[in-house]
């Protein structure tokens, strides 16, 4: 938890990162930046999916529609916050010459997306039946 607070401080304080360790090869930093952007696109896609569920499934019952939309939006928020956190952690690890941080977030996100997909299938089939 303390590590997390420290990371959040680093989101806003560029000079503190560059005080630690030595500057890595610029290509590693750019690769880290592209990974960050890829996660940000994933987050934007999840948020877009939340809008789409809310807008393009008008015949769903309100509770289902709001639940699915809010689940997708929450996943998008988590994904974007985790994107910047992981980027900072990787940047620090590279500067200090440590191993890159490992993460169980990709697995959790895949499971969450799978659950939402199954829920969508159930909702569509139930919609046909009803």
């Amino acid at each position: 938890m303390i590590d997390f607070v420290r990371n959040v401080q680093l989101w806003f304080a560029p000079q503190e990162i560059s005080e630690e360790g030595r500057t890595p090869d610029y290509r590693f930093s750019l690769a880290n930046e592209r990974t960050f952007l890829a996660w940000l696109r994933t987050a934007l896609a999840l948020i877009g999916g939340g809008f789409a569920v809310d807008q393009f499934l008008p015949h769903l019952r309100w509770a289902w529609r709001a639940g699915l939309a809010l689940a997708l939006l929450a996943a998008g928020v988590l994904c974007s916050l985790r994107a910047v956190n992981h980027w900072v952690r990787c940047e620090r690890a590279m500067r200090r010459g440590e191993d890159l941080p490992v993460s169980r977030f990709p697995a959790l996100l895949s499971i969450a997306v799978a659950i939402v997909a199954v829920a969508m299938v159930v909702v569509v089939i139930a919609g046909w039946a009803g």
Partner: protein
Amino acid sequence: MGGVSPGADRGAERGAATDPAQNRDPGLQPERTRLAWRRTTLSSTVAAVLAMKASLHGGVHVQGVVVCALCCALWLGFLAVAHLRIRTLTAEGVPPALAPRHATTAVLCTVAVAVCAAVLVY
């Protein structure tokens, strides 16, 4: 990863070289990063358009207009960050690393759009 890698030396030479053919990073790293920013801008545009459609759905009312304006402003904020970064990456020489402030701004714009969406769902 520790120590000065040959890539860093080559990067330093690349900034000093004047011949455009030698100026090019063989891995095209700055170009790929620039295009990644472009793709991300495109994704944020799609999200912003969906947000505006959702906010003005079912007639114009005060709450919808406010959320729509907010989403426009957030999209412009994201665009500004992306534009700054793309300009830095297009410039000659070794590009500096992304500033955490810019990364945080981009993420906060994304989070704020999601919050707007949650408000609209209710």
